[in-house]
């Protein structure tokens, strides 16, 4: 059995990256992800890997561009304000089709406390151009560790940036994490990597551009041909990579919907509700994009009601409403339902149960 460590979620990111053979980390300090950048500063150089501290998050994301374009696995981590600065880079990485990972340890708007306020920004593509990136939402230290490996696999498979959406609670909480190395299907060779012509198989130069469609390349002679390819790629991700977890869904009349740490809160509420004889189930989207719309569509046809629980003012609820298309009631438990009406407050299972009983 693999080694087990009692570590913070932010450190689990590091161990997961190592298991995925990530070669380079670029980052800038920001609360609440500082333990992550400190982990990489401590552990990467001594293993012959690259650690580089940037001068801003604009710097981090562009250093990440530089790392990814050489074909090695590279990553950065940040929190909300840094994520905002990275949006131009996200557009560029998506256009240049460069695989990499961005870990976003969310905080509550501009407090340094926990929340889930960046759902819309990560799932809708916060930059310019209309791109989408795969978003994985772990709920524990173990999943943070494992999703780093899954994330790099998906990034390489589809040549796209992948966002791992953590938050202050997952990042700061210490949990037991098994340092397992996961197996994945073989990946295509990175013959596009820019490393100098000496490594080019056909002797031709490689050219990576953030303006695919503007400067003509053999692959994309114009913008519309690039758009067509890009859309096909997004469709293929939507078709093949939707991931979610369900609990007691078969006979459920009331369905809780939550991602990240809140899904664990809902897990407790679910147990209490079942004890009371309420037919409650849970859907936890793991990929926030692509959103698991189909399961919502199916369940909306059974007459079930939905209660979306998220630690923000209501962001994922819009995706749920889009998926059920008005066929089912959709209710919300938001940051306004925290046990204390301050930034230290959190959504407690009691509150979720209370809301459930209200709806019923």
């Amino acid at each position, binding site marked *: 059995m693999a080694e087990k460590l009692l570590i913070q979620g932010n450190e689990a990111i590091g161990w997961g990256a190592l298991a995925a053979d990530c*070669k*380079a980390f*670029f980052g800038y300090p920001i609360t609440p992800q500082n333990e992550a950048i400190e982990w990489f500063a401590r552990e990467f150089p001594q293993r012959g890997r*690259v650690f*580089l501290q*940037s*001068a*801003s998050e*604009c*710097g981090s994301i*562009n*250093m*990440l*561009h*530089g*790392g990814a*374009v*050489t074909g*090695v696995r*590279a990553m950065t981590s940040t929190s909300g304000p840094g994520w905002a600065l990275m949006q*131009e*880079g996200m557009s*560029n990485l998506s256009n240049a089709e460069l695989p990499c990972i961005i870990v976003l340890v969310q905080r509550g708007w501009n407090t340094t406390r926990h929340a889930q306020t960046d759902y819309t920004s990560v799932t809708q593509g916060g930059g310019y151009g209309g791109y989408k990136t795969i978003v994985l939402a772990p709920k524990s230290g173990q999943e943070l560790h494992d999703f780093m490996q899954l994330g790099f696999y998906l990034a390489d498979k589809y040549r796209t940036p992948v966002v791992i959406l953590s938050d202050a609670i997952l990042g700061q909480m210490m949990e037991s994490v098994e340092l397992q190395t996961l197996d994945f299907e073989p990946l295509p060779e990175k013959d596009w990597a*820019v*490393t*100098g*012509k*000496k490594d*080019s198989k056909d002797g031709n*130069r*490689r*050219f*990576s*551009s*953030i*303006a695919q469609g503007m*400067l*003509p390349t053999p692959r994309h002679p114009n913008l519309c041909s690039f758009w067509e390819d890009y859309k096909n790629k997004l469709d293929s991700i939507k078709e093949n990579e939707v991931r979610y977890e369900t609990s007691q869904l078969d006979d459920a009349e009331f369905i809780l919907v939550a991602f990240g740490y809140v899904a664990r809160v809902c897990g407790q509420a679910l147990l209490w509700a079942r004890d009371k004889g309420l037919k409650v189930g849970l859907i936890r989207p793991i990929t926030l994009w692509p959103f698991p719309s189909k399961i919502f569509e199916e369940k909306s046809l059974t007459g079930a009601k939905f209660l979306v629980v998220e630690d923000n003012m209501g962001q994922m609820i819009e995706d749920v409403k889009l998926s059920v298309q008005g066929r089912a009631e959709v209710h919300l438990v938001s940051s306004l339902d925290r046990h204390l009406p301050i930034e230290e407050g959190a959504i407690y299972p009691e509150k979720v149960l209370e809301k459930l009983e209200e709806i019923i």
Partner: protein
Amino acid sequence: MEEKWIAGTPKLWRDIPLIIPFCPGCQHGTAIKALCEVIDELGMENNSVLVVGVGCNTMASVLVNVDSVMVAHGRPGDVASAMKRVLGKDTMVITWQGDGDTLAIGCEPTVHAAARSENITTFMVNNANYGTTGGQLAPTSVMGQVTTTSPLGRTPSHGYPIQGSEFLGSLRGVAYSARGAFTSPANYQKTKKYMKRALGKQKDCVGYSFVEILSTCPANWHMSPIESLKWIEEEMIPQFPLGEFKNVDKIE
């Protein structure tokens, strides 16, 4: 009768289907030609990576036959730093940028790459305005210069130009800093020498190297090509003197 090719299209120049990549009299082509020649003369064709930003300089990513990356406006300094650290000392990483790309939007990457003494080389083509977008005020526009965003001439209220070579030359992490121009065949050769020295610093792993190249922009200066060469000599060089500003073999 036997003959020998002396000069003209460099080996690394790519013949592209676009008709004219630069306006008549724009010396960006001259600068890219010099870059092709220098990389070739150093024998680094297969071990070089060119990182370009956004602006007229972007054309370098199409014209030079080495592995190239086109990145965000102003960000070649960051991208190149990361690439060099991943690829190691055997690969020469070169950034090709304009003056806005280097000293306005790209000031942070440039200054910090220099301060970290990244083992990369930055070539900045300075044409004293934003060429691609139609001739707006740049951080290198000279005092009094009329641009589309300083229609009455650059005044103290617009601020003062940044002397990139002197500024970067003052940083501890910089191994080499120089400024050249192409106002004469002699200057062409001298500037090429600066470019070669800068790349030499990278080859010898000394640290960050920087060369600024003054270039004409007749279309946006509203001058004939010949007049714009004269304008460089009379208006730019007094404010942007040519020469080497730092040249050390070890960063201390």
